C-alpha cells in the first residue's frame, strides 16, 4: 500500500503545482490605441455626457457597434454636433429638471448612444429609424438629415429622433420595474402582433380600436411606450388632434385615455415623475428652440 500512498501524494502535489501557477493580469489592454487629436466635439461629449451622465456618444462609425446586416453610412461631423447638443436639451434636461438632479438619467439611461448617418434600408425599401439593445445602447439613424433647416423644426426633431428616444427609454424603465398587469387587460386580446403593419388602413382606424398608433397595437409593451412618448413629446393640442384624426371614434378615445391614466399612475408612483410637468417642460423647450444654439461647442 506504500506505493499507493506515494502516488497519491505525487498526484496531489501535481494538482497543487498546476493550480498555483497563476499569472497576474494586466488591467490595461495589450493593444495600444493610436493617439488621435481630440476635436471640440470629443471634448464636449466628455465634459457633458461622460462626466455628467456616464454616457458615451459614438458619433464616429464603429463597425462592431453597428448592425452588420445593413449597409450603413457614418454620421457627418456637423450633424453630430447638432444632435449631441439637442439630445441634452430635449432628451436629458427635461428629466433633470423634473427629478431635480442628473442622477436619474445617469442611473437608468443606456450607456452608449450610437449615431448612424442614414437609415438602415431593407431590400423592399422599408427602413429602420432607431433601435435599443437591452438597457445598454440606443442607435439613432438618419442623423445626416439634421441640418440648419430641419434643426429649427421642432416637429421634425420629435418625429425623427426624440419620439424614438423617449419610447426606448420607457422600455428600459419598464425592464427595471414592470408596469402593472392591469394595463394589459384594458386592450386585452386586441393586440395584433406583427400584423400592426397591415392591420390598420389609416391611423384613425388604430385610434378607433384604442391604439395611439398602429405600432402601439403590436403588444402591450409597445403600447405603453408609444402612449408615454406621444404624450410627453406632443402638446395637448397636437395630442388631441391626433386622437381626433379622421376615422377615430369616441369609444377608441376612451380606451386610450384610460390607458394614459395607467401610464401616468405608473410614472408617478414608481418613478415620481409627473408626466404633465414633464410634458410642459419639453413643450416649453420646443417652443424656445429658436433661441437654442445648436452649433457652438
Amino acid at each position, binding site marked *: 500500500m506504500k*506505493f*499507493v500512498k506515494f*502516488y*497519491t501524494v*505525487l*498526484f496531489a502535489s*501535481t*494538482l497543487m*503545482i*498546476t493550480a498555483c*501557477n497563476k499569472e497576474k493580469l494586466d488591467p490595461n489592454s*495589450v*493593444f*495600444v*490605441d*493610436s*493617439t*488621435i*487629436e481630440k*476635436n471640440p466635439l470629443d471634448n464636449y461629449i466628455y465634459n457633458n455626457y461622460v462626466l455628467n451622465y456616464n454616457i458615451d456618444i459614438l*458619433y*464616429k*462609425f*464603429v*463597425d462592431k457597434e453597428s448592425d452588420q446586416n*445593413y*449597409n*450603413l*453610412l*457614418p*454620421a*457627418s*461631423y456637423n*450633424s*453630430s454636433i447638432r444632435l449631441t447638443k439637442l439630445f441634452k436639451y430635449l432628451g436629458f434636461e427635461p428629466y433633470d429638471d423634473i427629478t431635480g438632479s442628473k442622477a436619474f438619467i445617469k442611473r437608468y439611461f443606456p450607456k452608449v448612444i450610437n449615431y448612424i*448617418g*442614414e*437609415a*438602415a*434600408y*431593407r*431590400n*423592399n*425599401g422599408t*427602413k429602420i429609424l432607431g433601435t435599443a439593445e437591452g438597457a445598454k445602447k440606443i442607435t439613432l439613424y438618419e442623423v*445626416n438629415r439634421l441640418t440648419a433647416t430641419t434643426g429649427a423644426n421642432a416637429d421634425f426633431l420629435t418625429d425623427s429622433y426624440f419620439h424614438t428616444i423617449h419610447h426606448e427609454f420607457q422600455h428600459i424603465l419598464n425592464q427595471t420595474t414592470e408596469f402593472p398587469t392591469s394595463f394589459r387587460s384594458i386592450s386585452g386580446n386586441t393586440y395584433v402582433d406583427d400584423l400592426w403593419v397591415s392591420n390598420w388602413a389609416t391611423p384613425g382606424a388604430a385610434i378607433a380600436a384604442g391604439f395611439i398608433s398602429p405600432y402601439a397595437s403590436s403588444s402591450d409593451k409597445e403600447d405603453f411606450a408609444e402612449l408615454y412618448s406621444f404624450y410627453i413629446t406632443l402638446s395637448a393640442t397636437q395630442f388631441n388632434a391626433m386622437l381626433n384624426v379622421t376615422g377615430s371614434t369616441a369609444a377608441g378615445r376612451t380606451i386610450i385615455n384610460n390607458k394614459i391614466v395607467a401610464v401616468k399612475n405608473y410614472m408617478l408612483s414608481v418613478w415620481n415623475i409627473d408626466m404633465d410637468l414633464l410634458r410642459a417642460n419639453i413643450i416649453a423647450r420646443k417652443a424656445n428652440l429658436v433661441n437654442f444654439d445648436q452649433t457652438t461647442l
Partner: protein
Amino acid sequence: MKRNYYLLLLIPCFLFAACDKKRERVFEDSPTERLNAAVANAQTILKSKPNGWIMQYFPGDNAQYGGANLFVNFTSNADVNVQADYVSSNVTSTYKVYPGAGPILTFDTYNSIFGFFAAPGAISQQVNNDVGLGGDIEFLVMKATADSVILKGRKRGNRIVLVPMPAGSATVITNYKTSYARFYSPNSYRFETAKGQTELEFGWFNSLLSMTTTYSVRATETGVSFYAESEIDGIKFKDLTYKPATTAYPNGYYDNAAGTVKLVPVF
C-alpha cells in the same frame, strides 16, 4: 491493484503536459506587439505623403461596377481630405487606423465622396434599395510601404491600391478628371480585334457590359485600367492607352501596347 499504479502514473503525465505552454516562437515579438507595430506603421506611412495618395477604388461584390480614383490626403492623425475624379467635391472628414485581423483603416465620419459608393441604394439611387453600389469604408491594410499601400475592403473584399500622389497634385487631379470625363462621355463602346467587333454598353457606374462579360474599368491619366486582367477574342490586357483622333477613329480610341485590342468610343 498493480495495474492501477500504472494508471495513476499516467495521470500526472497528462497534467504536466498540459502545463507546458512554452513554444519556440516563429517571430521574435509576440503577435500583439507585431500587430501594434503594424498599426503604427500603417498610420505613419499613410500620413507620410505631403501630397497624399491616389486611391484606386472599386465598389461592389467582385468589383463589378468599375472604379474611380480618389485623391486622399491624411493631413493629421484624425483628418483626411478627399477629392475624386468622378465628382468636383473636396471634402474633409475623419479616419482612424485600429487593430483587428490586422491594421484596419476606417473613414469613420460621413464623407460624400465615399458616401456615394457606400450609401444604401435608396439614398444613392444606384443598383438596389439596400446595398447600392456596395462601396467599402473600412479596409484591412494588407501592405503599407512608402511606394504603395494595398487595402482589402472589409465587406466586399476588393483589392484597393494606393500609390503616392506626385508633386503638383492640382495638375495631376485635373488630368485625371479630364481623362474620366473623356471615358465617361460616350454612349457606349466596342472592342475591335483582328477577329471582329464586340459591342459594349455601360452598366452601373463605370462598368462595361458585353453579352457575356462584365468589364470593370477605371480611367487613368493615360487611358483606362481594368480591375483584373481581361480577355477578348483570346487576347489578354489590363491597361489600355488613349490614342487621339484619326480619320478612321474621329473620337480617338484606347489600345494595348501591341495594338491588338482597340476600345472604341461610340457616340
